[in-house]
């Protein structure tokens, strides 16, 4: 009897989890399906789910019209370097807050988080003017710095909560064995926090990849990433949903594949430390 109840609950839970999962994934699935429709089928009412004439025409048009490779390369560089740079700054910061806290540590953490509460548009003009002065407009270097800075509070917070899980005694033991601070960070702390660091890196890479305010406002041609690529297919006057869907699918495909391959690490990292 008990086994049957458990099995029933399992089936219900699994069905529920799948339903939620499909619900969350549905917009992405719909975008992918629409990318293979004609423009007329894309707006058909009632919507056509599967039974349409599959076509690669939208992908052909998008590839012909835009230099996808350039946008993709910019996204990889900007998201990748901003994440790595952020981690290089955040690991020592989070170590200090987790293992050598001061009376103001909590305040600093909250203050860091508060910078995320200001709408980005509020600082658009100051940042834009700074970029003009420093010659950073439409440069990948400029975007790397900006995206690193806007994601830094999240990286520090995530790493801080991971590090808090690690017993301080282990680090103390390393110190007693003569490890320097650098050795302690690199050889003791980092290997133990690898799942946490990996999930932080992944999550921030995704955040930087999808960032669409600064990447649209601070770029033109040379540094424009995939967000600008998608924006170039959006139009309030004209029905180009199938082409927009093809562009969106091409923009999210790399990050979707990356997420698919690293889902185990991502889930383990997220459930282990920060978000729980």
């Amino acid at each position, binding site marked *: 009897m008990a086994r049957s109840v458990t099995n029933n609950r399992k089936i219900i839970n699994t069905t529920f989890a799948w339903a939620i999962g499909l619900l969350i994934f549905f917009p992405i699935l719909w975008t992918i399906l629409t990318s293979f429709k004609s423009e007329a089928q894309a707006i058909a009412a009632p919507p056509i789910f599967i039974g349409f004439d599959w076509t690669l025409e939208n992908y052909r048009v998008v590839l012909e019209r835009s230099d996808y490779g350039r946008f993709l390369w910019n996204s990889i560089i900007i998201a990748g*370097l901003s994440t790595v740079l952020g981690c290089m700054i955040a690991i020592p910061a989070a170590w200090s807050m987790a293992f050598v806290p001061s009376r103001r540590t909590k305040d600093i953490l909250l203050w860091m988080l508060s910078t995320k509460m200001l709408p980005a548009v509020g600082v658009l003009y100051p940042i834009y003017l700074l970029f003009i002065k420093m010659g950073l*407009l439409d440069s990948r270097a400029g975007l790397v710095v900006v995206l690193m800075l806007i994601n830094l509070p999240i990286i520090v917070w995530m790493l801080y909560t991971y590090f808090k899980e690690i017993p301080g005694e282990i680090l103390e033991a390393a110190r007693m064995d003569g490890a320097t601070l650098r050795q302690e960070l690199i050889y003791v702390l980092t290997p133990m926090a690898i799942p946490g660091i990996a999930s932080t890196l992944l999550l921030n890479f995704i955040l930087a990849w999808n960032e669409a305010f600064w990447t649209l406002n601070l770029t033109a041609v040379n540094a424009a990433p995939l967000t600008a690529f998608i924006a170039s297919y959006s139009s309030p006057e004209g029905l180009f949903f199938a082409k927009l869907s093809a562009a969106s699918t091409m923009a999210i495909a790399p990050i979707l594949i990356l997420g698919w391959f690293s889902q185990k690490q991502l889930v383990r990292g997220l459930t282990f430390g920060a978000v729980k």
Partner: protein
Amino acid sequence: MSLKSTLRAATALALITSSSAFAEGHSATITIATVNNGDMIRMQGYTDQFTEETGIAVEWVTLEENVLRQRVTTDITTNGGQFDIMTIGMYETPIWGANGWLVALDDLSEEYDVGDILPAMAGGLSHEGTLYAAPFYGESSMVMYRTDLMEAAGLEMPDAPTWDFIAEAAAAMTDRDNDINGICLRGKAGWGEGGAFITAMSNSFGARWFDMDWNAQFDTEEWANTLNFYKDMMDASGPTGYATNGFNENLSLFNQGKCGMWIDATVAASFVTGDDSTVADSVSFALAPDNGLGKRSNWLWAWALAIPAGTQQEAEAKQFIEWATSTGYIELVAENEGWANVPPGARTSLYENPAYQEVPFAQMTLDSILSADPTDSTVEESPYVGVQFAAIPEFAGIATEVSQEFSAAYAGQQTVEEALEKAQAITNEAMEAAGYR
């Protein structure tokens, strides 16, 4: 990490992140910010021809209209210098021209023939008589209707209908059982969406945004009549959820045969008669309606090419503008894609061309453009230039807020009276803060 390896890493980073040059083998490269619409995308396809002729390479930054507006505004107000040519509209041009942010287009070549630009377009893209942007294409608004449904309703659409006729025809064509709405109109919040439509409509009802002292006029009977008429007609004959419908939503409904009439931009004519339309064979056109007060409810708009002051490539940018907005470009498109696909509404000579006169919507587009006058758009005198907008910097912000209130009234979240009261307060407050009152 040693100093040496730090330097190596920094050099590598700089190399990876540095911007590459794109002017491969060209004398110059110009960067153009533009909107994503059919005509602009078509022009991008012909850019190679311009490069071949002049040796000037062109880089395009294509963005959605609202994103583009924010992007180019940020750049021009900070003198960012990211673009050599910007695609802007009739709203921005006179304001930016007055601020000295645009290069005056007063020295275009003789072959270009500035005098051929439609006077309404030239007027709307000028400040104190100086042209600041060259129209790539122009548009007004008109009635697009289904001839089969009109016939079935036993009615005949006049060339210049009144609002009463439109409401009557809409009611007669509505067939809820078969999902046919008599009329589809914009109701979506946004100064360029539902805001543009209702402002143009209000002109024909004798309403205006401001009196000569810049006082808001939403407390007048004319505005109440406009909004009540719109809402009553749409509640009776419009599609469900019309309060959130914009151009694309209505285009989609019309192309699927779910609208008897649609009053919107003249550029939509090529869409509703195109391959993606299921009703292409039974569409005809009429002037936007009026109320017998001497003003019709059609708007006037142009997407135009302008050069931001301070660009390093002014001469090359002018060369491109002359090429892209010339009669030669129109002929190039006509030769390759047919006359129905040339950019409309910019040049007088296009409408004198017998080949273009064969295009079904050509004459109605011209008549609509000619019947809109941005310098005299309201029945009573008003202090602003513009048909569906007032060409002052504050307008976009105010009209967006006002249109949100109107949309809420269409959706039944508040009454028309409440929406107008709020619109009056919002507008007067903003105008006072801006120092107009």
